């Protein structure tokens, strides 16, 4: 019955309860929706890193990562590609030939990394082919096709079908060059990536730098699902100890840090909101105790022990907090669901966001664990906020409390 009494007590002074419940609901709503916004923002960046830029895992010759020297290649990379692609947790693997080069248009030049790919395999490990805004993704059977980013195209002032000249070094160190035609222009959320990466067929690049056609510098691996990359990376490391196997988390430690620190920051943010609300709850409960001194005195007089009185006040506070908290969480989930479909357009800051690799349209998302986490924090806030008023209540002497004229 004590649970029921506490619940009914919440609604004794409806106006006062609604004021504090509304305050809690708004605070929790703001906290949860901000979490959803930030999660969406970071997850979009992580998805972009995995699906467009890096894939889940990459393999190189250990020295290549330090030197970027074309001689640090993997000799039988296509055999390795077949072997890895057959593994259960692997969706696809794609071998790449890499070369740092100077790309020049009639007007200007820029340093880029030329990535030689097998388009059919590459489409299984990245979604870059879906990011084309002009042209096609190596659909023509002609030689020396080039797919570049919009940022690079703007910088070089080239358009679709424009010719560019690529200057790079052959395997023997001789400076060489080749003429490529722009057949596709892609656009991603990461303008730095757009400016830095240009794609050609692997066979064209191998021929140009006189590299063995079975060799390559990089293996990109896409897994069947997220969150197994560390496990698969460990397996591959054990299987190929002479190669450098790295998950995207190792390749981009800043993303890992951002992901982890974001979680922590979100909880700190919510805790600060709840702390502020906690003082409001304490104030409300002190008023409740003051108003009900006589009643609490009566309860203790007729035999309600201190632990039960304490529990009654704590339950009342938790109900108050939880009602507001759940309303706030539900509102935040509803708005998250709506904006996850429509997106939040931050195009005003698109240039700045894209330069950092972030999308200008954010699709908020919220995980079940975050909802549970916030709910538990709300309950904890209720319990902590109840301690002081409840202690005041149990310190009352029944005879004194009953004497008070209200």
């Amino acid at each position, binding site marked *: 019955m004590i649970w029921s009494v506490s619940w009914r007590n919440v609604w*004794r002074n409806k106006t006062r309860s609604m004021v504090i419940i509304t305050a809690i609901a708004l605070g929790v709503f703001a906290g949860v929706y901000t979490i959803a916004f930030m999660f969406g923002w970071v997850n979009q960046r992580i998805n972009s890193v995995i699906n467009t830029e890096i894939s889940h895992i990459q393999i190189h010759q250990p020295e290549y990562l330090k030197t970027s020297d074309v001689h640090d290649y993997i000799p039988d990379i296509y055999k390795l590609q077949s072997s890895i692609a057959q593994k259960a947790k692997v969706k696809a693997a794609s071998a790449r030939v890499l070369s740092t080069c100077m790309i020049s248009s009639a007007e200007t030049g820029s340093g880029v990394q030329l990535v030689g790919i097998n388009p059919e395999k590459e489409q299984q490990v990245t979604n870059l082919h879906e990011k084309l805004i002009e042209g096609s993704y190596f659909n023509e059977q002609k030689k020396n096709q080039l797919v570049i980013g919009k940022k690079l195209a703007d910088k070089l002032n080239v358009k679709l079908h424009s010719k560019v000249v690529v200057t790079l070094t052959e395997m023997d160190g001789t400076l060489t060059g080749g003429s490529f035609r722009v057949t596709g222009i892609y656009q991603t959320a990461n303008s730095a990536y757009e400016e830095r990466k240009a794609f050609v067929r692997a066979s064209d690049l191998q021929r140009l730098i006189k590299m063995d056609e079975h060799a390559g510098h990089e293996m990109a691996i896409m897994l069947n699902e997220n969150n197994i990359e560390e496990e698969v990376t460990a397996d591959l490391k054990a299987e190929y100890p002479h190669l450098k196997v790295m998950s995207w988390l190792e390749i981009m430690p800043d993303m890992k840090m951002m992901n982890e620190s974001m979680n922590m920051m979100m909880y700190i943010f919510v805790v600060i909101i709840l702390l502020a609300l906690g003082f409001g709850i304490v104030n409300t409960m002190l008023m409740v105790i003051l108003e009900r001194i006589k009643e609490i005195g009566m309860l203790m007089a*007729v*035999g309600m022990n201190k632990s039960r009185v304490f529990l009654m006040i704590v339950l009342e506070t938790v109900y108050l907090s939880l009602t507001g908290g759940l309303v706030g969480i539900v509102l935040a989930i509803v708005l998250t669901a709506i904006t996850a479909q429509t997106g939040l357009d931050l195009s005003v800051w698109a240039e700045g966001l894209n330069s950092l690799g972030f999308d200008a349209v954010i699709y908020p998302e919220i995980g079940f664990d975050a909802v549970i986490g916030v709910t538990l924090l709300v309950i904890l806030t209720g319990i902590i906020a109840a301690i002081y008023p409840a202690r005041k209540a149990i310190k009352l002497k029944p005879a004194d409390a009953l004497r008070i004229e209200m």
Partner: protein
Amino acid sequence: MKIVDLKNLVKIYDESEVKVKAVDNINLSFEEGDFAAIVGPSGSGKTTLLNLIGGLDTPTEGEIVVDGTDIGNLSSSELINFRLRNIGFVFQAYNLIPVLTAKENVEFIMELQGKKRKERSERSMELLSAVGLKERVNSRPSRLSGGQQQRVAVARALASKPKFVLADEPTANLDSKSTETLLDIMEHLNKEEKITFIFSTHDQRVVKKAHRIITVEDGHVVSDEKRK
């Protein structure tokens, strides 16, 4: 059979600079089945005396022996438990729990005692019938008149099957008719169920019904008159 025995009872309030001797060396006892009224002018010490008997206050000196237990030696948590199992209270302002119905108010005490739901329900119905509120068991206090609320308070006081009931000015807020009804019920319970009632009052209607009248002045018992 003696159920309350007060020996050399003294209560001094010294919260301010002036010490007030509210109860001054009282020796008094109550027998099972008493229907006693403690009377006296305001500030005479009758409510303090009632609070001491009920274990709501602790004596400065002396002993309060209730059914063989010196309650002056009990800790505050032991006292709460003792009150729950041995003493029923009726207050001047009824002091029902406003969010509970009449039946729930009566059951609440039994729940604190750990009684089972079925027993609680049966006894609360029985007690509310005894005080003439069978038809109002599901009404909350705000829907009841002052007299009806006080009758629920009497039923609540009896719910725990106490050794005796202490009633502090139970009729102070009631009109004549409600007072008469309430007193008739309590007198009936006293006669038929042998329930001991100890009142503090200056209501002459209560005094008329009481079988024993203890007059207190300045913390002393100045007379103890038995009518039966």
